[in-house]
């Protein structure tokens, strides 16, 4: 039966000493065969299963997760959500996602704590300013709510920021009000619970070793719990996607890199928006618990260790104290790494491939969390209809042959 959550259920359970809560999802043993197997129990994968069941009426689905659901990048990111991308294709995809975010808590009856506190991208030099003003104008024409902030406006929103007395002064910012943060685990758990209710099997502790194909068609997956057959296999395994693709003879233009993040000890609220800066590499927001959630950069080499170099942490923290002098007295509580799969054009792949019935949703690099519901939604469409949704049509594999890249690296070299 459908689980309902509200203040009343909390009170009801309080009186029964919280002993009557039900399991959010079952942990069944895998069946012999499924219509669709989703490889990867992160937000994207669970969401894909959810939308397949909800919007495409396919219920005979298994989500197969190597560890525990949400154990990958879903639970390791800095939870920033925004859609102010330069190119139309990206803007449409990410904004599709933001729109879904806006109703997700109600839709799943599980609190995603999606907090639209605004996302700020700081400009530190003339080049940044030009790049951002172009982006803002493009966003406007695409119906996105990005605006330019003068330094004084930034100061008003983030009084603790040091805007002038630093190596690269803050000259302004692009600001998207509808951007913000959400509770990362909740996304995985919420999708899992509702998918499970619609009959989706969520299978944890089950590692997919390889994808079995026969004359150009997918047959199923070999797992640590034996072979499971399926008409279609949808791979959403972030860092490990290219490794799995290889077992099906498919080559993907991905490189897996460590991406690190860290949190500080919790303090009372000091920063009520999300601030990102590329030149002075520092992404900060403050969680509801009071911890500063800080995103560091990727390492320059491939690795599956979920552990990056310490120098990357230092690079980020020195930028943080430069930008926010009061943080000099803060302390790093935890630091961790994830494995992100990066595409040559810094845009994702949501696509079919030469193997019939095999689909990939990957290449999200450092920005996958924000796209979770949107990506899952269009991927479900792609898998169900064997045809991309118009929103993800451009994010195909062909672009690496014909050259129709969606280059989101931002403007390249510095001027003369």
């Amino acid at each position, binding site marked *: 039966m459908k689980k309902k*959550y509200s*203040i009343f259920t*909390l009170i009801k359970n*309080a009186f029964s000493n919280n002993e009557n809560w039900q399991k959010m999802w079952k942990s069944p043993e895998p069946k012999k065969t499924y219509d669709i197997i989703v490889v990867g129990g992160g937000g994207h994968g669970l969401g894909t299963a959810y939308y397949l069941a909800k919007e495409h009426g396919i219920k005979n689905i298994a989500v197969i997760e190597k560890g525990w659901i949400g154990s990958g990048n879903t639970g390791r990111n800095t939870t920033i959500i925004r859609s102010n991308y330069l190119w139309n294709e990206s803007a449409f995809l990410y904004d599709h996602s933001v729109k879904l975010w806006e109703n997700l808590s109600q839709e799943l009856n599980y609190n995603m704590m999606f907090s639209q506190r605004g996302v700020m991208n700081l400009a*530190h030099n003339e080049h940044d300013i030009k790049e951002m003003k172009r982006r803002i104008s493009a966003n406007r024409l695409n*119906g996105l709510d990005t605006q330019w902030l003068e330094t004084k406006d930034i100061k008003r929103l983030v009084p603790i920021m040091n805007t002038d007395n630093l190596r690269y002064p803050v000259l302004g910012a692009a600001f998207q009000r509808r951007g913000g943060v959400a509770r990362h685990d909740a996304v995985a758990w919420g999708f899992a619970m509702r998918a499970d209710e619609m009959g989706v099997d969520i299978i944890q502790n089950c590692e997919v070793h390889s994808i079995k194909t026969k004359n150009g068609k997918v047959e199923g997956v070999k797992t640590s719990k034996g072979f499971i057959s399926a008409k279609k296999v949808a791979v959403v395994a972030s860092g490990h996607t290219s490794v799995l693709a290889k077992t099906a003879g498919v080559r993907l233009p991905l490189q897996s890199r460590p991406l690190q993040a860290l949190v500080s000890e919790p303090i009372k609220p000091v920063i009520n928006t999300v601030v990102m800066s590329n030149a002075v590499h520092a992404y900060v927001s403050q969680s509801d618990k009071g911890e500063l959630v800080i995103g560091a950069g990727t390492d320059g080499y491939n690795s599956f260790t979920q552990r990056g170099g310490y120098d990357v942490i230092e690079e980020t923290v020195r930028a943080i*104290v430069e930008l926010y002098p009061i943080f000099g007295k803060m*302390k790093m509580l935890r630091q961790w790494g994830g494995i992100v799969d990066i595409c040559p054009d810094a845009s994702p792949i949501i696509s079919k491939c030469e193997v019939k019935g095999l689909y990939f949703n990957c290449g999200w690099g450092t920005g996958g969390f924000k796209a979770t519901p949107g990506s899952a939604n269009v991927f479900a469409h792609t898998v169900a209809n064997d045809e991309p949704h118009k929103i993800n049509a451009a994010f195909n594999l062909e672009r690496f042959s014909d050259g129709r890249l969606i280059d989101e690296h931002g403007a390249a070299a*510095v001027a003369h």
Partner: protein
Amino acid sequence: MSAADNKNSSYITDKEVSFKFDGKKYIGYEGDTIASALLRNNVRLVARSFKYHRPRGIYTCGIEEPNGIVQILNEHNEPNTRATVKQIYEGIRVSSQNCWPSLNLDIGSINNLLSPMFSAGFYYKTFMGPKGFWKRIYEPIIRRTAGLGKPPKEFRSKSIHQNHNVDIVIIGGGLSGLITARKLINTQYDVLLLEQDSFLGGILKNSKKIKRINNKEPNEWINETEKLIKDSKNIKILKNSLVTSYNFTNHLIALEDKSVGKKIDNNKSELTLHKIRTKHTILANGHIERFISFRNNDLPGVMLAASFEKYIHRYGVVPETSPVIFTNNSTTASLLKSLVDLGHKPAAYVDSRSKDKIGRKFLNYLEKNNIPFYINAEVEGCDGNKKIKTISIKKSNKIIKVKSSMLCISGGINPDIHLFTQSKGLVKWDDKLVTFKPDVSFQNTITLGSVSGNYNYEKTVEEINNKLSFFKTKNIKLKIELNDISNFNIKELWETKHERKSNWSKSFIDLHNDVTTKDLKQAVREGFDRIEHLKRFTTNSMGTDQGKISSINSLGIVSKILKKKISEVGTTTYRPPYAPLSFSAIAGRNTYEFYDPQRKTPIHNWHIENKAVFEDVGQWKRPWYFKKFEMESMHLAVQRESEQTRKTAGILDGSTLGKIEIKGKDSLEFMNLIYTNAFTKMKPMSSRYALMLGEDGMIKDDGIVCKFNDKHFIVTTTSGGAPKVLADMEEYLQTEWPHLQVYVNSITEQFSTFNISGPKSRDIVSKVFTDVDFSNENFPFMTFKVFDYMDTEVRIMRASFTGELGYEIYITPNKALELWKKIFHFGKAYDLVAYGTETMHLLRAEKGYVVIGQETDGTVTPLDLNFNWMIGKKKKDFIGKRSLTRSDTSRDDRKQLVGIIPIDKSEFIEEGQHVVESERLPKRITTPVEYLGHVSSSYHSPNLNHCIAMAMIKGGNKLMGSKLFVSSTYGTKNIPVEVVSPVFIDPENKRLLS
């Protein structure tokens, strides 16, 4: 019943220190931590808990403290400081955290009444509707109530970094660490010994477990050892240094606190972050005691037994002369003995173990000293208001109530495997020790003493000699005599049952984050049966103490619920750092004034004297524009500079340009491969504008190539692109074309570069370089000359980035300023003006020259810029050639470079705005508006006296002359524009070639 002093403590002095806690003045002793000083003053209530705001007291005596977390008011309001670690000094002001209005009367404790509703993960299940309420109502409230300390004040620390490269690092200066050090004295190895305390000794100082070492008092032996080490040539000791991170290939991070027990001097470095690279790491960092969950196990007065013992011997304070002791293992025996030896008598001794496990010897001791003891017994809970009054002991279903204000508990001890797991070493469960201990190490890591699971001190020497046998050192001989009454043994016990069931009764599993054993059970019930899920759902062990005293306990409890072995439930990840690590220490001096170096040209000071406003270009400081007078605006300055340059002459300091010297037999072939242009027919001593692509066919960089001959070239690059271009050249030479005999050197800094241009530039340079013939015939456009001048060598190229007659002058930096001034000396007569990058951009735009990174953005091919003439069509190959013929790159409706001008000349086009076909835009754009492209450059041209702009628009070449519109930030009305050629001035190059 209250605290007493232990005068024969080895450590504490009797020098009094006064300090303030929550505004009240107290006296402690020098060497006291905040915690020991408060206990000395019988202060039990020190904090309020995170979620329920329950009263809390000091629970431990070290880094593992979950409760005693305070704010240091006089140290820039530093939050979340451990009272059990931070030492007091005269005048330190400390306050409690997370309570209002006061610690004693805290409104937040209402949460305790509502606690049954605030069950694990309650916030996932409510605060959802109506839409928008989360952001506006719920979240702000939650945010305000959450968080621990108040924000710190601004403080620019001067913490420094210190790098070390050694052969062996010993972590921990306790018994094992010291013996190991002795073993390594005066060997070939460079050794670093790291001790987190301000003194060596560890267990030897924290307890009386060890009687003698080599017939010496422990203290005597420690001092002797320390002296031996200090006198050795190869071992260095770092005290107050806590190892926080154990990275790959034995890279360690340790934080040294240099202001222990004293005020911070803001002009000195108060912290040193040590970055250590070692061949071998020896972990001798001991163990951490764990607690037991029972009803109200968080009440002020509950304390870990070993910590209680530590307070007695280290800080010379007996927090309570007759506490109750509750244990499931043998380590508490020494505490009991210490109390008795000091003439105190515990109120009761409660042991969950059976007679035979406890051992006759110890039972006799209890009887002899007639201490009330209960075996096969448990503490069911304790009660009291803000401090313990009574303790309920449960023995064979009877409850016995004992009065005492403190309860010392021990649930066993855990090897401190945090660092070991950080190193990716493997741990395994030990059923006898009832804990995880190191198994296989992944790096060159050796564990010694209790961290290795060896709790028997007599065996330490043997263990060390065995494990370190591969070092070229002598075996060490030491006799260790114990005080302990029995060898280590333990009976598994995680939680005791409540007598009466109540929705409000709580036994905690994580004191820091207010997680109860009930929460764990509920979480498992809801399906979070994997330890990492449990962690995230309940926030268990996610606090600033990382659950040091409790994380294994939660595994124990969960394993019972799931009826699994603990080893099957798994251990939770220990993530660096070991303890919260100061941001300013991590940053060190690589921030604030040293965040990023400033690169300056040899003319820099002249620019300052002449009121230059600088622009950051990469690390370079470049003049952006020069103010003629203080009040001159950028716009006016740029208009003036531009006008003057076209009228007579202007000069730009182009020293930041990248310069690369290329030489070798195969230089010509190399150049033909690297650049799109063809260089074969190019004449010696001539120059050429050249383009560089990536293999994807997109423009990456540009510059001017000077050809001395087929075997020797000098090229320039963009200022920002220089390092990348050089790196790429090296890469191709080394990896792709090793058969090419070519060398490349960066000479960016070996030459200063001045660009002088304008109709009068020839007259000026002729006056400066009197013996050079600058006539058009003998010095045509795009040629260069090299000659001696001012005892150095000067290279002058006839080239221009403004469209005017111009020369690029190269001279060695030592003579650069002199020459610059000389040029101005002769330039005066012609009103020579110095201009900056903004004017440079304006002038080149008037002429239709592009800027890499402004017209291009990594998605632009030479064809898009109509640079077909720059592509050596006949060349078989060059970097990026093949990509130019891909179906997408060869489309003719790609975005192409055009010029645009406003039809109403009084209007101004904004850079970054987009080119559209519609006259107006809707107020709120709901359906995306199609656009052709964007405005890449736009300036007000002083020489044409209207706005000129460049744009990259779809099929631009075909749109010449057509009327379009450009959006504007100022409203919904777009600016009507005409598409024109991007060359606005002198299309027939009269000025350029004059």
